[in-house]
């Protein structure tokens, strides 16, 4: 559920807002419906990993991965013909980490809030 909410909202809002909106969205959703630290982190991470890899592919497939390959060379990544995959993976990883840690922060904030209201 959390995964779906994050991925759909981010997909829509990212068209209009800068990349860091993903941190805010995952934080808010996680502080609302997350079940545990691990679940929150994984939902955030997987949602953004999937979204960014998917969106990267949307741009990169019609491009025959020409540009991603050049970026791979720029970053001196190994794998002559496949370095675009590493670039794509790093993209997913970065998006995932931001979202994962934001979700985690959302979860812990809710926990902290619950105690103070008890």
């Amino acid at each position, binding site marked *: 559920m959390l995964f779906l909410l994050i991925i759909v909202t981010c997909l829509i809002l990212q068209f209009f807002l800068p*990349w860091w909106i993903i941190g805010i969205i995952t*934080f808010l959703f996680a502080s609302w419906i997350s079940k545990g630290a691990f679940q929150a982190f994984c939902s955030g991470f997987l949602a953004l990993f999937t979204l960014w890899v998917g969106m*990267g592919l949307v741009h990169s497939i*019609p491009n025959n991965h020409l*540009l991603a390959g050049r970026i791979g060379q720029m970053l001196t990544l190994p794998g002559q013909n496949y370095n675009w995959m590493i670039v794509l993976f790093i993209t997913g990883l*970065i998006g995932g980490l931001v979202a994962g*840690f934001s979700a985690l*922060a959302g979860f*812990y904030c809710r926990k902290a809030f619950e105690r103070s209201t008890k």
Partner: protein
Amino acid sequence: MKVAKAITSVVIALSLLILLNTKFGSIPPLAKFLDPFHGFWKNAESKTKPKKENLKLAGLRDKVEILFDEQMIPHIFAKNNYDLYYAQGYITAKDRLWQLDFQTRYASGRLSEVVGSKAIELDRYQRRMGMVYGAENTLLKMERSPQIKEMIEAYADGINAYIHSLKPADYPIEFKILDYQPEDWKPINSAFLLKIMSATLTGGSDQFYMSNILNKYGIDVVKELFPNYPFGEDPIIPKGTKWDFKPINIPQPPTNAPEGTVYHQTTKQIDEGIGSNNWALSGKKTVSGYPMLANDPHLNLSLPSIWYQIQTISNDVNAYGVSLPGSPGIIIGFNTNIAWGVTNVGAAVMDWYRIRFKDDSKKEYWYNNQWNPTKPRMETITVRGGKTIIDTVYYTHHGPVVYTDNLQPKNFSKCDNIPTGHALRWIAHDPSNDIETFYLLNRARNYTDYRAALTHYTAPAQNFIFASVDNDIAITPSGYFPLKWNQQGKFLMDGCDPLNDWHGRVPADQNPTVKNPPRNFVSSANQRPTDATYPYYLNWEFAGYERAHRINNRLSVMTRANVDSLRNLQNDNYSIWAENVLPTLLQAIDPKSLNQTEAKGFELLKKWDKYFTAESIAASIAEMWQKMLDKATWSDKFDIPNMPMRYPSKDKLVELLLREPNSKWFDNTKTPQRETRDDIIRTSYRLTIDTLQRKYGPISQQWTWGNVKHTNVPHLAKITGFGSKFLNIGGSKLSINALNESNGPSWRMIVALGKQVKAYGIFPGGESGNPGSFYYDDMIDTWSNGKLNELVYLKSKDEPCKQIIAKWEMSRK
């Protein structure tokens, strides 16, 4: 505990957000860069382009249509010139926005604003060389011509209309990597572009080395080794052509000898020759009976491509050719009636004058027997993430004093050949309206129009070649040539003496020119423009005669020429240098004295056809041998610590090799015995083979010339991965196909005039400046294979044409 966890996790998440949104050194803000909604992925272009687009643009006066051919080359149909250059600006920005921005920043000394402190010395250098001062002067002159003012303003309006249509996600990828935004284009930026061309093509000076040589060895050695007239010659204006003008008075040199100061900067060998060629054949020599014209300007190659192909059509023009991003109009091209092209002249238009300041305040300097005030000019350099620098440059009537002793940077190679405490007199500082020349050439119909267009041209001086459908051919080395006494400016000059000043100019109509010569062709290859009968001094040294000689040899025997014969000539890898010296070099070697590798190399050289092809191993050996010979002959005399000097020209060494086997110059002064030519040949041959062997192992495929030369086209900002692949191709500095590692033909064009003009062209790159586009380097294979594309020259926007793949309509908002 829970609060602590909450706070810690929020801090981690926030730090991650901030960290990934920040630029560290040359690493872009990572998440911002990788975000597939706004980052670099957005620059990955699809191979398929929309067939039709409609744009509403503010400022346009009428409807404009742009047709794109298979290389995505735009063919602009406008109804008036304002709209034409507006559309050229818009479409150039669409393809080359970052290149436009970067070139302007480079020329105007504003790179530190975006890349930070590492560019400070470069920015300071450009400012102190007077690039901004020169561009300001040029803009004033351009604005005085109503049609050029409208042209550069329309071009700026078009570029800005495109910039304003962009969201950050649409910015070219380099903006995302360097993390900055495009700024509005100003008409002065077109002047900056011309200043870059001047700096590239006329910015060299070796007066400083020549003065040291004069001090060390005296005038007789200078006369012998650095003569005013070369050993091999084949001037642009054929020998014996009569000058049909009465020359004006030549100024007198001062009587006192040049001074004896020694200059102590570290040296940088100036690269000889640039490599551009052009020629035009009269209809008597072509299969069609109409003239043909060929041009291949050579520059330091880069991606995005230096040139941008375009066809421009409005009420009074239909021209096709290449433009320089940043300048409206077409620089090299053709229309229905004429074709034109350029190569560099290499005239002496940059001189250095020693300045005597009254005191350290630098407020006054001695000139014409009195103290004269200097004009200080403040240059403000903004530095990203650093303190703003205010640099004061003192201007004399000569020009700016580029470096004074305490300001000369130590580890900055660009200023190695700048003498400190000297003022710079440079043609690039003068007001000029060079764009007018191109504006008029784009519209020229005949020889008279061509001559009229050239009167506006100042710098960088070019050999303008011309052919018309009326069967006229011509070539004119054009530009502002300062009126000088013989060899004025060969050495550094005393800035106090008015006799050392430039004395006005050679009248424009007395620039060398030739029309329809008896040999039925005209040509140039950066060599000396005239024989010794020309009354004015242009320079003491030009590029060697080898390429020109080869061109003229081939053209003089050519009959019934067609496109392929000219294309083959453009791709000619034959070396006149090798033809001249190889027999002499080989006779000195005793095959019995050689080891196995040396003997194998010797055999290859003996069998070599003297073509610098990619597969040739002999070519690699010959090229290295030439370098080693140069060093072996001159190093002991001219590589002296703390006294930077240069070597005599390649031609001088050829002359000594061929004619003076016992010349004292072959003696290595560092050894007790006396060496002769043949000793130098033998030791340098061993060294050549040894050097190649150490680098490439035993003789194998590794030794082939294509591999040793290693041609590639790098990215303009040298971003790894954005340059071309390695190109295994032939060519050499002294061949017509003058191709080095990454200096070579930046555009090859052949125009066959006739009832229907037909033209062919190629450049090493593509129309798009986006490394994520299929059109970024789609022409590079055709170029490296020595082929040309037939150019699509449209007469009307409605004519059926299979090559047109997309159409844009622009109308006013």
